């Protein structure tokens, strides 16, 4: 048997390393600037001047966190409603709309939120929330549907009310699948949020877009490096948190 500390090291070594790199690059501009300077010695400036990397990182994280949190909540709720008795007739229609929504390019959702609520943080939040909800709802439906009928029957048989069956049996069993949906929703949102810079939402897309327009590859790399790192950190972090959602007695 491996020691507890050993398991911990093996499992968390890479994420901790990644978080370290992200924090280091994000919060010590000197280091990041040095790196970019080495790569692009011919440029006059290496860091996006109007905002520090730490602020951009924070803006990005805030946008993703708020939208993903709301999307996780609303998506799970939609999944629950669609699999209850009163909502079941709507299941095929909801599934239709979910798959139609997912064929819509995220950029377009973002762009169309602008005429609805104007430029800035709000349209990006709205778009990320709507688009991020789709994978969560999809997985919540799949997860809740995959709970075997016998298990639910047994729960009802020992006198559980429908609300208790949902809380004590269905949700715990479906949780890993729902968590996987939330994880992909977060990753999609990190990506869409970079494009949010084009609608004035701030974040790490800002230096990328500024660099593309001003033909400064150092700005582009600054944003690309940090946002890619952030996506990997969040993805890996959530993958490692997922087992905590498992309950005892579950495979």
């Amino acid at each position, binding site marked *: 048997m491996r020691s507890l500390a050993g398991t911990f090291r093996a499992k968390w070594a890479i994420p901790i390393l990644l978080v370290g790199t992200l924090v280091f690059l994000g919060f010590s501009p000197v280091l990041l600037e040095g790196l970019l300077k080495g790569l692009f010695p011919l440029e006059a400036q290496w860091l996006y001047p109007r905002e520090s990397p730490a602020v951009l990182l924070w803006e990005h994280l805030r946008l993703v966190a708020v939208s993903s949190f709301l999307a996780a909540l609303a998506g799970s709720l939609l999944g629950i409603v669609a699999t209850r008795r009163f909502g079941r007739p*709507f299941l*095929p229609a909801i599934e239709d709309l979910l798959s139609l929504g997912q064929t819509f*390019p995220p950029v377009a959702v973002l*762009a169309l939120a602008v005429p609805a609520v104007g430029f800035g943080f709000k349209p990006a939040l709205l778009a990320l929330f709507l688009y991020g909800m789709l994978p969560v709802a999809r997985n919540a439906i799949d997860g809740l549907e995959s709970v075997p009928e016998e298990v639910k029957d047994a729960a009802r048989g020992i006198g559980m009310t429908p609300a208790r069956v949902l809380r004590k049996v269905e949700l715990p069993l479906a949780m890993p699948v729902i968590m996987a949906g939330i994880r992909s929703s977060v990753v999609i949102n990190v990506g869409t949020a970079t494009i949010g810079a084009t609608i004035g939402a701030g974040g790490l897309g800002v230096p990328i877009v500024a660099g593309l327009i001003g033909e400064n590859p150092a700005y582009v790399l600054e944003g*690309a*490096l940090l946002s*890619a790192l952030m*996506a990997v950190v969040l993805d890996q972090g959530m993958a490692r948190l997922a087992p905590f959602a498992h309950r005892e007695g579950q495979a």
Partner: protein
Amino acid sequence: MREEDRVTAVVAASCLAAMLFFPFMSLRATRLSPAEGISLFAALGPMRALLLFCLVLLLLGSGLGGAPKGWGTRISAATAVCLAFLVLEFSGSSAARLVFGRDFARVSLSSGAWVLLVGSFVLFRTVSRRLPKGNLERTFLRLLPLLLLLPFLAGKLDNLSLMVEFANRSGRFALELRRHLVLGLASVASGSLLGIPLGYASTRSPTLKGPVFAVAGTLQTFPSLALFGLLIAPLAWLSGRFALLKALGVGGIGWAPAYIALSLYSLLPIVQNTFAGFASLSPDMLDAANGMGMTRRQRLFRVEVPVAAPIVLGGVRVASVQAVGNTAVAALIGAGGLGTFIFQGLGEAAPDLILLGALPILLMAVLLDGLLDVLVRLVTPHGIREAA
């Protein structure tokens, strides 16, 4: 007693609410001035508005009356298509009336009309699902929405702002559409060329599987804009170094980084599904093939590939839909495609220009999805089809 058909009732009721309370169309004095909502009655006139109301009430009635059976199903499905058809037809002619004599005025569909269109889509799908599978009538009914192309083809919609944007850029539109399609499909093709062998090899060698999945998975988590951005510097360096690459048009911006990034993106779904497809072969099946005296080659092409093909194609399907959407972002790095219109529309605050980019992408994704779905069914071997 028949239980009421809740889906039809709820969707029809929301359509009704949208007709009463949402603006049906919007009018701008010029392309960039603020929009002013126009109600259904004001936009279409009382007779036509009443006709739409009657159709929605008919659907509401059929929903409250119970799940339609037999002819009821057919009539409900036809009514839903009719509703969408009339929304398009009427808004087209109303747009013509609204912009008449006002050269710069623009008319667009507004929330009410969109709710009706989406509502009739949901109703149509819900109702037509009730017809028995595999009969000719169901196929016929499925094709009914093609009627919606008529107002578009007949030029009835030409006065809607979306179509005006299209007419102003028809040459450019064809070019960007082609670029979008070529870029998206070429990257999925190269993703398959790379991903299928890698996925197959992963089933053979567990030591390969780990790194392949890790790399493909990590690439997939990268934001698309970041992946494009990461490729700009190395490609610019390469094209500066090698004249041949430069002559081919490879550079830091343009099609090259977009093509490479989109190919890398399509890796994960293809590798995953290829692995799942070949891993799904049961040892018994392979044993039976060996027992029949098949050579390894025969076994591969006559047993393994046919069984795995539908699952592999499923991965290609996911990758294609994803690539068509992500190609929109490629416009930001100068690769062109329909994203050009989306970003241009954003810059000019012209929602109809955004739609001109977005709607064809949506349509393309839906068509590709459907096409590959049909292909998946066609390649599924009979033995498996019956078991499923």
